[in-house]
């Protein structure tokens, strides 16, 4: 590809970070129609506007999602990308692959698509970027024959994703990969056939470090935690100290609740576990010496979402502690209770957070059968404008009756 042809894009071939422009060029070397993607993109760079049209509903037999339909405004000038649909392929939990598995996907995408991918989309799927309407079904069939399926899109369950978890992280407090796989398989129908007011996301993080951004981007975030005491290996504490780790400033001074103490002389740590908020900091810094306790489970935070429509939301704690062991019945029952409530009360294009705000957290908790707990709030409300129900109250007396009785006495 000559750089004179695409002067703006060629600026993005310079510099040390790997260039996406070179990746597109690589596909164009093998697939001449992909030169039209460069052409269209160069036009976008010149004119500072997208040339992709709004929407276009395309899918594969039996599914209502998994494909993002895309048509070009420059169909005449760039016929190679006139139709340029994306297929979302459900990633394996934790994004582990063998080279054989990846090659299978590459071969299928070479045959039926542009040869361009996102590894991965921000929900977690493998994004196969760009194919024609005609190729969607045969591409899907071949993916399915090789054990791959599409992910979610539209007003459906979106592809769940999870951090690397117990596969390669000593901090994992729950089996993120198995939970992710199990939820994905259990809810295939919800994933492939949009039938809700809007999208719904599960994200699973093994510990409060939240390496998959579960709290911010899922309606139902599952984050590992523990209840009992942090386990201290004082031998390892000594070794860290002897290796030059400044335990006082690195660990003790950073503890948010000041519940950890260091004895400089004995080189020993002491933790007041009743005041520990399980933030992970000390464990992150001294992984050999400190381990989370054994009474493990998950926090469920609900409502996390981006700003559209009513502003961004960081997930709200709805269940401070839930068991997260196979077959994960407690978590599934909770999710299904949420969906029942959402089905009945949710408005079109209303995310869970907005629904909860509209109907009130109190009513929501009642509907899904969750008991109140101070761990759900930062602080109690500063107004007494709550809604009492009849069953909270004694039988009502009418003040007029009292006054009139008094007057007539």
């Amino acid at each position, binding site marked *: 590809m000559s750089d004179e042809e695409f002067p703006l894009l060629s*600026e*993005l071939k310079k*510099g*040390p*970070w*790997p260039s*996406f422009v070179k*990746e597109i060029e*690589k596909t164009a070397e093998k697939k001449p129609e992909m030169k039209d993607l460069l052409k269209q*993109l160069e036009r976008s*760079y010149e004119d500072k506007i997208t040339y*992709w*049209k*709004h*929407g276009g509903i395309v899918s594969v037999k*039996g599914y209502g999602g998994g494909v993002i339909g895309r048509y070009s405004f420059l169909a005449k000038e760039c016929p190679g990308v006139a139709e340029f649909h994306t297929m979302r392929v*459900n990633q394996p939990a934790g*994004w*582990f*692959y*063998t*080279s*054989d598995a990846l*090659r299978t*996907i590459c071969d299928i995408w070479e045959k039926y698509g542009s040869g361009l*991918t*996102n*590894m*991965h989309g*921000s929900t977690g799927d493998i994004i196969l*970027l760009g194919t024609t309407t005609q190729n969607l079904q045969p591409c899907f069939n071949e993916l*399915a024959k090789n054990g791959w*399926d599409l992910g979610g899109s539209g007003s459906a369950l979106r592809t769940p994703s999870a951090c690397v978890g*117990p*596969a*390669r*992280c*000593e901090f*994992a407090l729950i089996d993120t990969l198995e939970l992710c796989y199990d939820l*994905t398989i259990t809810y*295939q*129908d919800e994933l*492939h056939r949009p039938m809700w007011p809007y999208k719904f996301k599960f994200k699973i993080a093994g510990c*409060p*470090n*939240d390496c998959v*951004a579960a709290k*911010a981007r899922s309606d139902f975030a599952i984050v590992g935690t523990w209840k009992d005491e942090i386990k201290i290996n004082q031998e390892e504490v000594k070794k860290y100290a002897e290796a030059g780790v400044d335990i006082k400033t690195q660990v003790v001074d950073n503890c*948010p609740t000041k519940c950890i103490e260091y004895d400089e002389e004995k080189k020993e740590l002491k933790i007041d576990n009743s005041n520990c908020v399980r933030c*992970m*900091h000390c464990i992150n*810094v*001294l*992984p*050999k010496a400190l381990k989370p306790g054994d009474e493990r489970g998950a926090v469920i935070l609900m409502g996390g979402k*981006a*700003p*559209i429509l009513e502003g*961004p939301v*960081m997930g709200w704690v709805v269940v401070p502690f839930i068991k997260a062991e196979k077959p994960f019945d407690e978590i599934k029952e909770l999710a299904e209770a949420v969906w029942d409530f959402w089905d009945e009360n949710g408005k079109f294009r209303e995310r869970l957070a907005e629904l909860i705000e509209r109907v009130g957290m109190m009513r929501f908790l009642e509907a899904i059968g969750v008991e109140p707990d101070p761990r759900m709030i930062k602080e109690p409300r500063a107004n007494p404008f709550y809604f009492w129900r009849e069953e909270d109250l004694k039988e009502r007396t009418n003040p007029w009756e009292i006054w009139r009785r008094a007057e007539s006495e």
Partner: protein
Amino acid sequence: MASEPVEEYISDIGPPHYEKFLPPVIKNNYGKWAYHEVLKPGVLVHVAESGDKIYTVRVGSPRLLSIYTIRELCDIADKYCDGYLRFTSRNNIEFLLTDESKIDPLIEEVEKLGFPVGGTWDATKAKYALSNIVHTQGWIHCHTPAIDASGPVKALMDALFDHFKNMDLPGLCRISLACCLNMCGAVHASDISLVGIHRTPPMVDDDVVRRTCELPSTVAGCPTGALRPDMKNKTIKVDKEKCMYCGNCYTMCPGMPLFDPENGGVAILAGGKLSDARSPARLSKVVVPYLPNNPPRWPEVVDTVKAILEAWAAEAKPHERIAEWIDRIGWEKFFEKTGIEFKVQLIDDFRQPRHTFRTTTQFRW
């Protein structure tokens, strides 16, 4: 034709089980990792209770990958890793090895391909590298972007490259970019977020609205009540005073695009975090209301991000993230130290701004 056997239609099988792709050393030590160490920037070793070890080489990626590059990465995985590799939540590639002696040759080969090794952090030593920037589609594929996605990210990572390669930052710093307010990928809780914004109301094309839009749901979808149905002409009217350019109407109705090449641009947010380590997770706050959309290398955006990052890196205590640095020094000093001008748009006037107004006389000067 008629005699061709009807193949069974396969669907709803879900993803392959992850276990098929785990290296044997992971299968054997699943859930039994004791600790990890950072051997050098980009290289981790995880040690299991059994004493088994797995080495990880982390490699930066533009996320947009051709199958030809993926095959080259597979060749490397075959040569050094028995074919095992994974991707991270921030679109990095991780090669998984059991033979320590193969690490350096692997690094040499993958860097020859043009892919940098780095993006790791050593919490014990309080040395952190910058990880990859998570981002969205932009002009490559989406119909609503106010800016491109891959382009600004490439320009930024070029400028911040040394921080990816070297663990020279005091704490974790997550940068994310979304090309419109839909924020696919949820960038709203990052240390530094870049968001494409429109600044002018939708341009209604009555004809397209008539042909393609459902009026009531489009009108109902506007969060500020800026839309009115014009039943007589079967179209929609926009109250320009009320519009905050969110683009939701365009998502609902192709007849009302917001695009405006000279007015669209970038907002910069800072001080979000997701981990609960030390201080609680929180949303990012807007610190620059608008920067121009300036392809191909977005110099204003790159300079501003660098200014924030370098001011923080120079001053932060070990482990302190941008949010925590601001907690310590105060917002007034944040603007002073980064050289960012405090603009009136940063004072919230949307739904519930009262929580953001200061109610104490405690200031820093």
